[in-house]
């Protein structure tokens, strides 16, 4: 099935992303902050830290990461708790936790607009905010939402209306690492290069196994574009 | 999900109210049989088992008729808050109910009254001097409530404490009686509790012949208190025997 066949309300092709925008250092009091938008989905992330000490129950030999999710309206519910957990674990895997042992870094995620693919947008925003705060990272991470329509074709970065219509979707996070600080040695053990790995995968809805792999592949291809955008926007602002 | 408040639970209806009134009338008579066929002075069959939850330092499961309780004991461990130095240990108790424990759903969660009663019933039996500066947590979960919950919780908690190896002067066992008119009925079920005229619960350390906790509601004459207390104390010492044999069994069983 060709991607041109899919009809999308906003006239995008199946693998076309919504316009991306990223601005950093938008908050003055925070140690690092970033505003990331994908179409009408807008997330503001602020990083505070590293502050001394970890919460009880966390490993004091490593840096601890705390994620606080602020929904656009209302109180935090189960969905937001799940987002917090996924975001926290994702960020833990890209941060170099051993550099600042016994510290806590807080990431506060404020949703400004939700038009689908909210969690990927928040992950991208948090990643940019971490860079802005100068938190040592192993590599960047980019996140994307892949939707699977009833007809079995994959659409990228669905809007909220599309998310509700489609059969299933997957939030995927990929590393962005050609210039990674990781030595080549560690990835040499395996046959595939590191950027083909998956950091996070959260799926909703039933899909055939093959379609999941299809999603992975398409997501990975698109993530290169987001990586490129992220890198460019980071570089332009550091100069 | 339907948020319409016009809800009902299938078993609750006007019939049930009538039934309850009938029962209340019945209980006033001098001679009646209990619904589960027990005699007035006969306790429900007690099933006790230690080691119900491996994550805890000690735990116990108790099933008295329809009442089922699990108690886990954690510690002695670091006190939660940075409280003032204390040369004796602290005891922290919490009782909660599952959402499906009672006939009406959703009346679950923490039970503050029972938590503090459990604390009072146990603190006299535990040798707090053996774990200074630290806290022992006793957490109880009532899986199903079928009457006489608090005595079962206390009994089960004392067994869990023994399983955790916390030093105690003696095992604590607890039994309650209900009073209906002139009758005294031991170990009441929740149906009986709902229409009782009075209730007496005794928690004691049978080997030391000491009462650690006693509560009484309703109007009682001294003679009746005498009779009820004797009944409770007798049942408590018998219950303690069952607890002891349960612990011995667990200790002798190959681990």
């Amino acid at each position, binding site marked *: 099935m060709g991607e041109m066949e899919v009809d999308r309300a906003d006239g995008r092709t199946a693998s076309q992303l919504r316009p991306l925008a990223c601005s950093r250092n938008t908050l003055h009091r925070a140690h690092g902050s970033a505003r990331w938008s994908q179409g009408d989905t807008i997330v503001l992330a602020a990083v505070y830290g590293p502050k001394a000490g970890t919460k009880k129950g966390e490993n004091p030999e490593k840096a601890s990461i705390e994620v606080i999710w602020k929904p656009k309206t209302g109180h935090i519910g189960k969905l937001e708790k799940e987002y917090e957990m996924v975001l926290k674990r994702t960020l833990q895997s890209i941060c170099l936790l051993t550099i600042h042992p016994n510290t806590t870094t807080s990431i506060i995620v404020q949703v400004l607009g939700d038009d689908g693919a909210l969690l990927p947008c928040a992950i991208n925003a948090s990643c940019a905010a971490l860079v802005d705060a100068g938190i040592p990272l192993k590599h960047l991470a980019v996140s994307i939402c892949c939707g699977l329509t009833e007809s079995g074709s994959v659409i990228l970065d669905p809007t909220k209306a599309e998310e509700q219509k489609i059969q299933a979707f997957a939030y995927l996070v990929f590393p962005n690492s050609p210039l990674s600080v990781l030595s080549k040695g560690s990835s040499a053990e395996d046959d595939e290069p590191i950027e083909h790995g998956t950091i996070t995968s959260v799926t909703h809805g039933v899909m055939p196994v093959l379609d999941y792999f299809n999603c992975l592949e398409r997501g990975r291809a698109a993530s290169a574009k987001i990586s490129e955008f992220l890198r460019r926007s980071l570089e332009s602002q550091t100069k | 999900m339907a948020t319409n408040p016009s809800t009902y639970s299938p078993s609750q209806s006007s019939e049930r*109210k009538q039934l*309850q009134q009938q029962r*209340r009338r019945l209980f006033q008579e001098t001679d009646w049989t209990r619904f589960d066929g027990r005699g007035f002075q006969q306790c429900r069959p007690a099933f006790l088992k230690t080691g119900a939850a491996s994550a805890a330092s000690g735990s116990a499961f108790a099933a008295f008729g329809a009442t089922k309780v699990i108690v886990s004991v954690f510690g002695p461990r670091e006190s939660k808050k940075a409280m003032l130095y204390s040369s004796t240990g602290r005891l922290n108790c919490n009782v909660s109910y599952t959402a499906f424990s009672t006939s009406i759903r959703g009346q679950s969660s923490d039970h*503050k*009254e029972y938590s*503090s009663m459990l604390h*009072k019933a146990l*603190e*006299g*039996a535990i040798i707090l001097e053996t774990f200074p500066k630290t806290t022992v947590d006793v957490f109880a979960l009532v899986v199903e409530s079928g009457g006489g919950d608090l005595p079962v919780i206390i009994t089960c908690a004392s067994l869990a404490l023994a399983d955790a190896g916390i030093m105690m002067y003696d095992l604590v066992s607890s039994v309650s009686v209900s*009073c209906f008119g002139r009758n005294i009925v031991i170990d009441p079920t929740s149906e009986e*509790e*709902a*229409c*009782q*005229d*009075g*209730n007496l619960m005794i928690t*004691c*350390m049978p080997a*030391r*012949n*000491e*009462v*650690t*906790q*006693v*509560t*009484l*509601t*309703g*109007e*009682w*004459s*001294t003679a009746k*208190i*005498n009779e009820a*207390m004797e009944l409770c*104390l007798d049942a408590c010492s018998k219950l303690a025997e069952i607890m002891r044999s349960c612990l011995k069994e667990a200790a002798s069983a190959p681990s």
Partner: protein
Amino acid sequence: MVGLSAGEKHFIYGGIAQDLRTDGRQRLHYRPISVEIGVIPQANGSSRVRLGATDVIVSIKAELGRPSSLHPDKGKVAIFIDCSPTAAPMFEGRGGEELSSELSLALQRCLLGGRSGAGAGIDLSSLVIVEGKVCWDLYIDGLVVSSDGNLLDALAAAIKVALCNTGIPKTTVNLGASPNDQPDVDVSDEEFLQFDTSGVPVIVTLTKVGRHYIVDATSEEESQMSSAVSISVNRHGQICGLTKRGGAGLDPSVILDMISVAKHVGEQLMSSLDSEIAAAEASAEDQ
């Protein structure tokens, strides 16, 4: 809360052993009790009871409500106790909640009888207006203003006094057309019905300090207690409720002994309360 030196502790123990307590009382003597009624004008009944330096205020408000489905022929009574931080700094914020709920529970146990309603100190069936439809909800609110031990006895006495002072407005009922309708109830502003308080018990707390037990312990004495048993006794010498505080175990025979002592002391307390109530009523009428 009460920091006592070894010498002071010894003095308390010694005094109790010799039946001469630090304030000159004997073991089974109450402190002078002073009673005021009608201290809260907007309530249906209210009282202020002072037992030495312990000072409590109780107000009773009656509101129209619906009887519970289990007891359609009875009104409802709710007891709430609040410990004001003026009584002790540790009641600040949520610090008083634990004690407050403990006191509320103990009072409920002693005043409201068994689950079936038998043995209740307050006659709940007199609170019903239309069976199954309308009844009075009696809200008993206690406030501990100053605390010097023996709060439970003081609160129970204050509730008894406040109930004597309580007037429930007379009502006239216009039954609705169909039996399912909620009937209209007219509440009279002028006519009040006096409440029958003959069955309301008093609470006698026996505090065990050393080898003896005492009544009406001050907070210094309470800090040295090993256990305390609160026994509620009514006019007929029946026991209406019993709770135990303190961790130490008690021999069953001691408990029975305490019960008989409490019955005796309770009688005296009740008669002294009665005369205080009469005096307070007389002085209220004078004004």
